[in-house]
């Protein structure tokens, strides 16, 4: 029905796909471990060894406004704090100052339990600060919180769209409570909260 198409644009939900994490760490051992932790927790993982490589991947090169950006869509960035060159903190700032990237949650990982450091990271917009060595329970907790906020964001977008469309259409055909976009058959059913 045409009306439904007008009201309920199919939103590609990140919840129905695997969440994609970009992990940044200069230590090869830590990269290997974090990659495994994330894969075991059903994330799609990309691992890089520096802040500048992370920015390259995210398409923040000066001359490059990557059109591939959507395919690479990163749902979460996890970065080590102490890295040579660009620190995790500097990377965090660059991401939060970028109009295209600032919505991506950033988690800092560090072996050092320094309150002032934790505070400044959180103040700068970090989602969380994990003490190394990072454990499976940390990753699971993170996943829950990311899924919750992604779900909330989608609900917000959908309800905004519904409202906008309702304002345009005559009230007799306005949408009511079309809460769940039909899941695409090829994709796994989302485990999480109904939208």
């Amino acid at each position, binding site marked *: 029905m045409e009306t439904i198409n007008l009201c309920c644009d199919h939103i590609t939900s990140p919840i129905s796909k695997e969440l994609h994490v970009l992990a940044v760490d200069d230590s*090869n*051992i*830590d990269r*290997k471990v974090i990659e*495994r932790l994330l894969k075991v927790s059903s994330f799609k993982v990309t691992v890089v060894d520096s802040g500048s490589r992370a920015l390259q991947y995210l398409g923040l090169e000066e001359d490059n406004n990557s059109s591939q950006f959507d395919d690479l869509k990163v749902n979460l960035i996890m970065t080590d704090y*102490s890295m040579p060159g660009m620190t995790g903190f500097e990377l965090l700032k660059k991401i939060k100052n970028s109009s295209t990237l600032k919505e991506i949650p950033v988690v800092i990982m560090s*072996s050092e339990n320094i309150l002032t450091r934790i505070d400044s990271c959180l103040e700068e917009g970090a989602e969380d600060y994990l003490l190394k060595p990072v454990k499976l329970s940390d990753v699971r907790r993170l996943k829950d919180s990311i899924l919750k906020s992604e779900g909330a964001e989608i609900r917000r977008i959908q309800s905004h769209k519904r409202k906008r469309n309702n304002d345009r259409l005559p009230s007799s055909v306005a949408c009511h409570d079309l809460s769940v976009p039909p899941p695409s058959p090829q994709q796994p059913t989302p485990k999480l909260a109904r939208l």
Partner: protein
Amino acid sequence: MERNQMQMHRQIATIRKSLFDQGYLDEQFVQLEELQDNSNPNFVEEVVTLFYRDSARFLYNLDQALEKRPLDFSRLDSLMHQFKGSSSSIGAKKVKIECTHFRDYCNARNTEGCQDKLGPSRRHAGPDKSFGF
């Protein structure tokens, strides 16, 4: 299961337990074991191999740094910080502790302390016992 195999499994289990009891390994090592499964059957071995390679490189760099006079404490501290990170990630508890002690000496600008920690004996005798290798 064949008798010999059973004996070997028992031996391995005993050695493994003693590594924990003696404080060489901590719960992070268990975490690594938990990450191993049929899809990644050699995960622990791979990580430990990476660690040994890292250690070799680290000891070499440390050696170089300790030759210099005066000692560059901030370089030494930075090396130790990295190595401490690696050892912590695999659950090498004793190594991690030794790194902390070394860094304390660095912070105190204690040349003697740093030298003692590694000792001239290490170069001749091979892996340093205090690092639990």
